[in-house]
């Protein structure tokens, strides 16, 4: 549940998108990461920074969300609320996946130029900032309950997709 007003949609405006983007860029530099992604828990990519051209970002977002969902399922089976951090160690690259306010997923891909300790430290700070922006997204959604592109859609618009 993202917005108390519109529970079936998550609307991201330019302003908050840019704020997400600048947090990710700072995290990328501060953690010496290769690439960072911000994904919602349903698997949609919100924002990314770094060498993203080497990655299939849509698939990555979907699998990261699946990974968090499966791990959350495991957590509840042993009586934990969640496992908020996942770490995958590869031969060359590593992946740090963490939850932001139990709603967004922050993915950091890094190699030997960085370390898990540094990434964890920087992710914690970035997570707090992302949480603040997320709150602003909610507040905007509450103010602007109606009047967006979706409300203006007509049946003719929808039909036009299939011509």
């Amino acid at each position, binding site marked *: 549940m993202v917005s108390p007003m519109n*529970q079936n*949609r*998550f609307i991201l405006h330019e302003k908050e998108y840019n704020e997400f983007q600048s947090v990710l860029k700072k995290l990328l530099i501060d953690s010496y990461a290769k690439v960072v992604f911000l994904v919602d828990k349903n698997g949609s990519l919100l924002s990314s920074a770094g060498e993203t051209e080497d990655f299939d970002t849509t698939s990555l977002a979907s699998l990261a969300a699946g990974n968090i969902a499966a791990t959350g399922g495991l957590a509840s089976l042993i009586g934990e609320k969640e496992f908020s951090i996942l770490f995958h160690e590869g031969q060359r690259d590593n992946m740090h996946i963490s939850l932001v306010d139990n709603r967004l997923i922050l993915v950091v891909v890094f190699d030997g130029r960085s370390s898990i300790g540094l990434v964890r430290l920087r992710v914690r700070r970035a997570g707090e900032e992302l949480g603040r922006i997320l709150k602003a997204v909610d507040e905007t959604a509450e103010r602007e309950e109606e009047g967006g592109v979706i409300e203006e859609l007509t*049946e003719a*618009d929808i039909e036009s*997709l299939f011509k």
Partner: protein
Amino acid sequence: MSFINYSSREINCKIVYYGPGLCGKTTNLQYIFRRMNPGDRGKMISLATETERTLFFDFLPVSMGEIRGFKTRFHLYTVPGQVFYDASRRLILRGVDGVVFCADSQITRMDSNLESFDNLRINLREQGYDPDRIPLVLQYNKRDVNSLASVSELHALLNYRNVPEFEAVASTGVGVFETLKGIIKLVLIDLKKGGR
């Protein structure tokens, strides 16, 4: 839950193909993958067992064109149909905007269809959805096999909401895009109405 990004001018929605084991959910996605212009769809991901049974989900992102300057993207997922993968099915329904229930038309599979349909309703409720209101279409698949149940039998068994229903042979593509278009329309209409 749909995601509307004003910065990249995109509308993203999630559609889940649900149904009993071996009813053809993955086959639907494979056909869509094969037939769509590569520029309009992403890679298809299948998390499957060695015997190609879906273990967690299949995923295929597709683009359907623009509405009012917004690109529309639909994330298609399948669930594992086998009964014992229920925990995984529940997870995949999270954030869903519309469901395609894929029924197996073979007369011997009617119990499995019903069991899976009941399971869908239970799992939707567990995820906070009203199973009587969520956008839903039915696909009666495998219309090319012997010992078929009639459409009216399938309708009587499953379609108490009187939602759009499509006959299909997913392996050859019959009805696959009609089903997809059917659910996309319902999802966008529901999105416009706002809130469930």
